[in-house]
């Protein structure tokens, strides 16, 4: 194995107008675990997809052991020794086949011969399994294995290719502590064998256990590389989240009466209870790393999830919606994160997307009144500054930023008591981000507003008050006035350290 197993230079990639990678330079050496950190949309997954042959880079080069490397398909990358274990464990295995077939699947797909020799296959499979310390009956179907064993199967399958580079994308996200520690032992032994490992994770406990080096990514660039005997974990998180404050002036208005009161809420077993109050005419941002519990909190308020214990009151009355419909009827609206999956109805035009939650108000005796819908849509298009030709343009013809404006407009078309916006700036260009943020603040007077964002910048751009969430609990509160960014950073990072150290 050469010392520089793989070298990336000046990698750029854009999807339409959305520049995802803006020149990534990175060396990955054999026998080293490099942890890659980055917020949503920083470009981690695009980088991985270029390495494993799913996407081609627009410019820049990848060199593998001194040779230029441009895989056109995932199987080509695999043959060259670049092996990826995806976050979703079931992407890596075929549940209906037995372990042996799974382990030899790549050979089956590309190899010669027609008939299978069961005994030979099982013997070969046992060898492969033993190499990663997997001691199970290889004739068992994968569907009957635990998640951790399935993951070992997909790693074992990967190892059969003599990898130069092993990419693990959030591999511990669904493992127990014992299972994770077994995975870490395996990673240690691969490292000792000289494999370069790129490990994508936000879990501090994983990072402390494994990292030889931490690379932070932000906005499509490498924003920090940390190595040496003492790794600077806080520095790495800071580099990942960034702290340049954009030139947005927030004038904090006088908050009104309390709208949302949360008392001793426990989001999941073992999490610390927390309390908070949101007032009318107030925009609160809840920030924290991916997986800190922001979306779970939003789910409790919107009727798609349940808290373990605690009390939520809306305008003084208990608020425990059983469904989104119940939440909406109570005046709690949620613009969900991950727009294409949770919000956009791809077959519909702008108008039909926009009026979806409030069709009842646009209907007489169950019949939809087109004129009423059109008037609302026209009003929202002009208020939000959606760039389109007409309200009947297909939603898919709009840019990401304009789609997001429509999704936010969907919930601003009617008055709410509490407006929740989960990652409203996801996949949105800077101008649309400003427009949406501006509109949220401008209309905030009559309701309470909570914005859930992983990026601290976005929180500082929009909020009167910034709450920090970590380990499914609120760990800090800051008024957005002469704010001490490093204090917030410390809470974002350090709060996750003690419990991590405890594992």
């Amino acid at each position, binding site marked *: 194995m050469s010392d520089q197993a793989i070298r990336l230079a000046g990698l750029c990639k854009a999807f339409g107008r959305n520049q995802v990678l803006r020149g990534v330079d990175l060396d990955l050496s054999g026998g080293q675990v490099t942890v890659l950190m980055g917020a949503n949309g920083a470009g981690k997954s695009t980088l991985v997809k270029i390495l494993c042959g799913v996407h081609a880079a627009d410019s820049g080069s990848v060199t593998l052991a001194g040779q230029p490397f441009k895989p056109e398909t995932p199987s080509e990358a695999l043959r060259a020794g670049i092996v990826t274990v995806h976050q979703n464990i079931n992407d890596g295995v075929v549940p209906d086949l037995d372990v042996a077939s799974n382990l030899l699947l790549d050979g089956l797909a590309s190899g010669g011969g027609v008939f299978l020799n069961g005994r030979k296959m099982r013997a070969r499979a046992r060898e492969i399994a033993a190499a990663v310390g997997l001691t199970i009956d290889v004739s068992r179907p994968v569907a009957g294995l635990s998640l951790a064993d399935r993951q070992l199967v997909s790693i074992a399958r990967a190892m059969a290719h003599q990898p130069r580079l092993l990419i693990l994308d959030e591999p511990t996200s669904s493992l127990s502590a014992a299972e994770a520690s077994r995975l870490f032992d395996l990673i240690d032994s691969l490292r000792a064998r000289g494999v370069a490992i790129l490990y994508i994770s936000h879990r501090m406990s994983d990072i402390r256990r494994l990292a030889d080096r931490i690379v932070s990514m932000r906005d499509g660039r490498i924003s920090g590389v940390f190595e040496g005997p003492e790794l600077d974990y806080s520095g790495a998180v800071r580099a990942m989240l960034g702290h340049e404050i954009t030139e947005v002036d927030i004038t904090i208005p006088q908050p009104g009466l309390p709208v949302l009161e949360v008392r001793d809420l426990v989001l999941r077993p073992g999490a610390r209870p927390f309390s908070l109050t949101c007032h009318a005419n107030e925009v609160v941002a809840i920030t924290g790393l991916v997986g800190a519990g922001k979306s779970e909190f939003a789910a409790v308020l*919107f009727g*798609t999830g349940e808290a373990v214990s605690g009390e939520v009151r809306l305008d003084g009355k208990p608020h425990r919606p059983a*469904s*989104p*419909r119940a939440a*909406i009827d109570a005046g709690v609206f*949620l613009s*969900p994160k991950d727009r294409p*999956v*949770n*919000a*956009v*109805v*791809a*077959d*519909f035009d702008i108008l*039909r997307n926009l009026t*979806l*939650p409030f*069709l*009842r108000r*646009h*209907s007489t005796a*169950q*019949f*939809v009144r087109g004129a009423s819908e059109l008037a609302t849509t026209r009003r929202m298009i002009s208020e939000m500054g959606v760039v389109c*030709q*007409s309200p*009947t343009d297909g939603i898919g013809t709009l840019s990401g930023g304009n789609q997001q404006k429509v999704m936010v407009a*969907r919930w601003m078309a009617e008055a709410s008591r509490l407006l929740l916006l989960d990652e409203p700036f996801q996949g949105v260009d800077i101008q649309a981000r400003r427009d949406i943020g501006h509109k949220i603040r401008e209309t905030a007077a009559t309701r309470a507003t909570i914005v859930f964002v992983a990026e601290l910048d976005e929180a500082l751009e929009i909020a009167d008050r910034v709450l920090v969430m970590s380990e499914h609990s609120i760990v800090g509160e800051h008024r957005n006035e002469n704010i001490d960014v490093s204090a917030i950073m410390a809470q974002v990072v350090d709060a996750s350290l003690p419990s991590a150290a405890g594992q």
Partner: protein
Amino acid sequence: MQSGSLNAIDLAIKYGFLALMVGLIAYFGVMAEGFLSPHSAVFILQSVAITGILALGVTATLVVGGFDLSIGAVATSSLMLSAYAMVVWQLDAASAVALCLAMGLLVGLVNGILIVKMKVPDLLATLGMMFLLVGLQRIPTEGRSISTGMSLPDGTTASGVFSEGFLMLGRHRLDFILPNLVPLSVVFLVLIAIGVWVFLELTRHGRLMYAIGSNAKAAGLAGANVNGYKIAAYMISGTLASFGGVLLAARLGRGDVASGNNLLLDSVAAALIGFAVLGASKPNAFGTAIGALFVGILLQGLTMMNAPYYTQDFIKGGVLVIALVFTFALSGRGGRARG
């Protein structure tokens, strides 16, 4: 739909199928004598009335992103049930029809619950229901057809009759332009087609059903009762299928175990052909009605030109494939993920 950007492909997508249908009518009009007469037109309508009604039901399930393979079996079960109710139980027409519609509604409800609550994939759940019903409808008569005077398993003889009122549903003809021209079943088809179209296109429930078919998660987060609407779609499908079965029984005048074999394929074909009409690329009531009509015209024309009966399925299949190409390949949008 901007007028400025209509090019040849857009035109082909939008009007291609209607043009094909007009061409077909013109061709048969020239080639087959008597094809362009009112009686021929009515014959076509009558032949498509029952499949059209079933196809409109399937359309409702396609709209929510589902599929109902049990409609053919629901229709034949309803055919047998109505015959059994009148011939063996000696019920009157209204009770027999009500019983059949209730049966269709119940089957739809069970389908919906299997799919929504038990998480059985739609194709499998309705396929299972299809087998179940095909078997069930034969048990009471030990596999025999039902007609007045048949002997029952317990040794008695069935003495009930199909009432006049019931038979009218399938056989009565209204005066329209010519005396005794339009069969009642065609009137039902037109009314149901209009009803389903109005429901899907003009009411908020139809809108929400389309939203569920396109992105169920987003529709749910916008407050739609996703499970409720899915179950409702299967109930609409089951009820319409059972009504189709009633019309078939009324036309045949007996509970014939062998009829209705083609109902499923014909009505599914009509609904899928409907995707291509006016470039909709999605299930829609108008397209479904046109699709059913198209198949009817084709078969009637071929019959009048003395094409052998056994070529009919082949030609139907060909038309379906062409329609699917119109929908998915030409529109370039990929249409919906599944038909």
